[in-house]
């Protein structure tokens, strides 16, 4: 069983790390989590990001659920914010999430196959 002692260890490690964190150097991942997104598979996608980020120990990347973006037919929708740059991905599944993570979040290169423009046209 995941015990309280394990939680305290996580706390202690996190407390030591805080000072190394920059102000705004983080990448933000937003996952559309309204009815349409959830029905289309947004939960496993969000979970995938949580797993990948913790596996790689990337403590400057955050992942947050957001409401409906109003594009139900192309959900699940994921937005990646790096500084001022915002990229919107659609029809994201666990495989695409993995590509976004490795190629874009770590590699800095947008995954063209799933950017929203391709689906709106």
């Amino acid at each position, binding site marked *: 069983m995941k015990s309280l002692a394990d939680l305290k260890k996580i706390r202690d490690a996190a*407390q030591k790390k805080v000072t190394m964190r920059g102000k705004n150097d983080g990448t933000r991942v937003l996952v559309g989590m309204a009815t349409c997104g959830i029905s289309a598979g947004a939960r496993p996608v969000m*979970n995938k990001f949580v797993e990948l980020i913790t596996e790689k120990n990337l403590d400057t990347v955050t992942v947050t*659920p957001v409401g409906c973006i109003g594009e139900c037919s192309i959900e699940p929708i994921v937005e990646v914010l790096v500084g001022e740059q915002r990229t919107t991905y659609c029809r994201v599944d666990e495989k695409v999430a993995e590509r976004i993570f490795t190629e874009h979040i770590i590699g800095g290169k947008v995954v063209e196959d799933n950017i929203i423009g391709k689906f709106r046209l």
Partner: protein
Amino acid sequence: MNELSLHILDICQNSTKANASLISIIIEESTKKNTFTIDIIDNGDGMDKETLERVTDPFFTTRTTRKVGLGISLFKMAAEQSNGFLTILSEKTKGTSLKCMFELNNIDRAPLGKIEETIAILLLNAEGADIVYKHVVNDLIYIFDSREVKEVLEDVPLTDLNVIVWIKDNIKEGILNIHKEETL
């Protein structure tokens, strides 16, 4: 939605939108009564009478991006498919409580599924409502309370992803344990 925990996620997002600071999710499985009940209680803005009356109608929504609100009507349909029902109580400024009942052994009842992922996502919401999750299997109980975790964490945010993963594992194992003990 093929897992009840996906419906729960969706319903709790309504609570988040309604500015709830605490959401309680209570699951009760009773083999004796052959029931599987889900209660979701929030302390958010609540609804007036008119909204409440129309809330299970799929063509009603207060959202502006789309003409249909689906969340509650989908959950209601899932309950009715397995010989159950859904009821909602709500009071403006006080909060909302929703009860959904299923027949435990009904083959049309979807499984609960990955409730730990649902709770993890709720905790990652920017609005940051606290979550109490109580799961009862006959006489055995598992309880998770995010306020207790926060106390242990001191100044470390609950949204630290290592903490979120710990919470997910704790909930998953906790529920597994009460089911295991129950069959012994």
